């Protein structure tokens, strides 16, 4: 049998995968989410329509199903093992890449709706004040609108991001060895407690996130918007 510290080390390996997936999804998902939100708010009707249909499909189907489709469908359709087999060497962990790709797409759609809600909730008078003072649209967005949007979206974002940490456990369906998958290997060998013990890792991670968001909220409490 394994000692407590051996179990911890193995679980930490798995948790590193969990955190990698979490952090990379967050970074790329937020950027892509902002871009998608502009698409869905576009005054060019075909673009906003296509974007909204895309968001509907992504939010309307289970993330688990999306992971399976991204991982298996290319091989079934094109006869290739998967999307990433031609990628540079460091990106060749095809299971992880398929998982990351799916998560970025999925979460960027949720993020985009939060951005859209935030941006559209800023009174039109703020844009007009910027314009009347001679600011360009870009200057108005970055100097005037953005921080007000950030302040408004902190609570829904923190919800979504805490859900993301826990959703990463889904990727074990395509054999990405994140923390719960590691724990399951112990279970197969008759050790059940590591599985329950993983909960602690999530709790700590979510606790840190909660504190972080509380800090941001406090930092932005100096103004009302």
């Amino acid at each position, binding site marked *: 049998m394994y000692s407590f510290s051996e179990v911890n080390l193995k679980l930490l390996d798995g948790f590193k995968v969990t955190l990698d997936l979490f952090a990379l999804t967050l970074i790329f998902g937020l950027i892509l989410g902002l871009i998608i939100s502009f698409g869905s708010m576009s005054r060019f009707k075909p673009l906003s329509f296509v974007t909204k249909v895309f968001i509907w499909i992504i939010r309307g189907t289970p993330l688990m199903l999306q992971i399976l489709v991204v991982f298996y469908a290319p091989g079934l359709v094109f006869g290739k093992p998967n999307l990433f087999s031609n990628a540079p060497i460091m990106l060749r962990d095809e299971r992880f890449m398929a998982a990351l790709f799916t998560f970025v797409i999925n979460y960027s759609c949720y993020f985009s709706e939060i951005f859209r809600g935030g941006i559209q909730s800023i*009174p039109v*008078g*703020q844009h*007009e*004040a910027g*314009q*009347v*003072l*001679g*600011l*360009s649209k870009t*200057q108005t967005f970055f*100097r*005037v609108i953005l*921080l*007000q949007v950030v*302040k408004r979206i902190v609570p829904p974002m923190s919800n979504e991001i805490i859900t993301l940490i826990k959703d990463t456990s889904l990727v074990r369906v395509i054999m990405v060895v994140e923390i719960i998958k590691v724990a399951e290997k112990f279970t197969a060998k008759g050790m059940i407690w590591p599985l329950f013990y993983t909960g602690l890792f999530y709790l700590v991670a979510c606790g840190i996130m909660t504190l972080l968001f509380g800090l941001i909220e406090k930092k932005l409490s*100096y*103004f*009302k*918007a």
Partner: protein
Amino acid sequence: MAILEVIDLHKSFGKTEVLKGISFSMEPGQVLSIIGSSGSGKTTLLRCINFLETADRGKILLDGDVLFDADGEKLTAAERRALQPKIGLVFQQFNLFPQYNVLDNVTLAVKLRAKKEKNAASRKAMNAEIEEKAIALLNKMGLGDKLKNYPCELSGGQQQRVSIARAMALEPKILFFDEPTSALDPELTGEILKVIRALAAEHMTMVIVTHEMNFAKEVSDHIVFMDKGVIAEAGPAAELFDNPQTERLRSFLSNYN
């Protein structure tokens, strides 16, 4: 020579024609008040002059610049932006930037305009100068002790004074006010009227949309009375109030007494 000239301006929203041929002109240093019942098109007129709406027909000239000419070439976004600082607009709802303190609200646009300056040293000197001017302006508005306060920490009257200072900081040739006191408690309107009176004494050219008849009478040289999208009557303030010529103006004024 007229500083502002509006010629036969028309504007419709869908099928409703809101401005049905507005013409008037102003001399430098004049104060013009626009009065008229709700829905007569006063705000729309200001918005057309300030590039917040585009008129359908007519012409707007400001001190030699063409702001709008339905028959001429359309201004590009860059041309409009270059002209924008020459026209100031004070909103009914202030529209201050909540995340900036009073001083930054006033200096933001001026600093961004000065930012094109490449030389870092001269840019720093410029910013210092901008701040100095802004502080002087805010002192004059009685806000000298509020420089570091945020809009949410100010009364409505103070916020409106900041927004007037913000518009003035760009040194516009003409300043427009859209009901500057109507979002304020009655006891706070006095402080705004005082500021406008002080600006008038300095010969700032101003156009004020207002429902405060006593104020309009006192501060303006000229009055324009709008009714259903047309100018029903216009003239020197004293004459127009004391001796209205049209039945429409008479009945409008009688609502205020």
